[in-house]
């Protein structure tokens, strides 16, 4: 992966909370137009990593180069080119879907906001929910609104933290197809943290597996399965987990 193709370059990134090391010496790069899965069990450091790449969490050490800029020192230069969606964050509950999207369109400086919102409403099957307050929506509907918010500015870099958590299989499938379609249409890069091995296997071009704050393996789903002689990514993950337990 050359420097020019790279959208994100993470180098020796570490985060310590007191004496606890949440992420250690993490280095990787993301090429443009890729969908990359960040896999790991609970406490592996996925959310901590995403938080640092979003600028919500200050790293203890290391660097993040995003769009060729030093993100830690100058995140405001690139924040308008990215967006995110996480189950740990909600949208204002009393505002309607339409109001929420209008506010975020304004925050991201979206031109032709009404047109863009109408397009997203159509794309994410939100047309009939536009005047509903967020608090009255089901979790599946809320996820669709959060994804619409995450795409409001046509981000070149989209970070998703378990976007299909608590969704039924059919809605998860539908969300995956939307994300793949978005990448294909716009050439954007998606970093995707998940517990769901099957989902990651279906959607991602490249996978990074984390354990105890470290990157322990990476490659395409096929490469990883071949390398470990397994039929599924879940089996690869379980083998890697067993290996780490023995350490």
């Amino acid at each position, binding site marked *: 992966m050359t420097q020019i193709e790279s959208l994100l370059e993470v180098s020796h990134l570490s985060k310590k*909370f007191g004496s606890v090391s949440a992420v250690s010496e993490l280095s990787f790069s993301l090429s443009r137009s890729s969908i990359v899965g960040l896999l790991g069990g609970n406490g592996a450091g996925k*959310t*901590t990593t995403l*938080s640092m790449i*979003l*600028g*919500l*969490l*200050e790293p203890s050490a290391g660097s993040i180069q995003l769009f060729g800029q030093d993100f830690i020192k100058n995140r*405001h230069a690139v*924040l*308008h*080119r*990215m*967006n*995110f969606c*996480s189950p*740990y*964050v*909600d*949208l*204002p*509950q*009393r*505002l*309607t879907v339409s*109001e929420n999207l*209008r*506010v*975020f*369109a*304004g*925050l*991201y*400086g*979206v*031109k032709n906001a009404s047109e863009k919102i109408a397009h997203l409403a159509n794309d994410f099957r939100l047309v009939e929910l536009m005047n509903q*307050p967020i608090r009255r929506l089901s979790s599946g509907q809320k996820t669709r609104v959060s994804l619409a*918010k995450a795409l409001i*500015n*046509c981000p070149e870099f989209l970070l998703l933290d378990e976007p299909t958590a608590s969704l039924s299989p059919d809605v998860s499938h539908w969300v995956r197809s939307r994300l793949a379609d978005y990448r294909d249409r716009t050439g954007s890069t998606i970093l995707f943290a998940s517990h769901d091995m099957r989902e990651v296997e279906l959607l991602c071009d490249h996978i990074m597996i984390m354990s105890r704050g470290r990157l322990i393996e990476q490659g395409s789903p096929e490469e990883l399965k071949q390398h470990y002689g397994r039929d599924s990514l879940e089996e690869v993950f379980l083998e890697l987990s067993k290996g780490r337990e023995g350490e």
Partner: protein
Amino acid sequence: MNTSSYDRISALLLRYFFLLRSSWPRLLEIAYWPTVQMIIWGFTSLHFSQASPELTTGGILISAVLIWDSLFRSHISYTLSFLEEMWSRNLANLFVSPLRSWELILSLATVSMIRTLIGMVPAALLAIPFFGISIFDLGLPLLGFFLNLVFTGWAISQAVTGILLRYGLGAESLTWMLPFLLAPFSCIYYPLETLPNWMQLISKFLSTTYVFEGMRALILEDEWIPHLLWKALALNGIYFVVGLTLFCVALRAARRRGLLLQSGE
């Protein structure tokens, strides 16, 4: 696609407008408390005007209540808007957007000013037919008193929102407590000399003391003392810088400790 500060501040103001529009109790509350305060103190003033007329000369009691309330309202309006973001777990969405901290502060201050005016103006207007007292008779100095107290309110809010960022919603009660901590030292209803020496020492470091001393001189002695207002303004400048510093330090600490993603209790 790039955004200007104007777009982002407008978007945030729109967010608070939508919030108010969606909830009539919130809208009612803005005007409710100042009006109730004015009515209670208006009748108290009416009672004292017969028993001890010197206590209520020129509507001083109602004027003091209304002017003090502008500090409380500006602080509460600012802090509640910030708390709305914490209650709705929306802070992370704001902090990963291109919104800058100073734009957030300016938006909160603008909302606070609008809400304070919505609350105070009807109460002040109602005092005229109810009790025959017009706070507007104070003229231009009223604007000076009002703005000074609003600035004090914002300075307190900066500190409180910083504490909320750092310690989460567990520190929410500070929102209501802090302005009342200042009240006894602010000489709202009594002159500075009433306080014991040690309290006077503290009072002299409070901008609010000079606002109320100035107000009393104007109402009771018909004397306008501008230097009291300048002293208040200078102290407010210091408070504002201290409050802002506290907020920035707390925001930095929240980023270091990962508190922005999970800003609960």
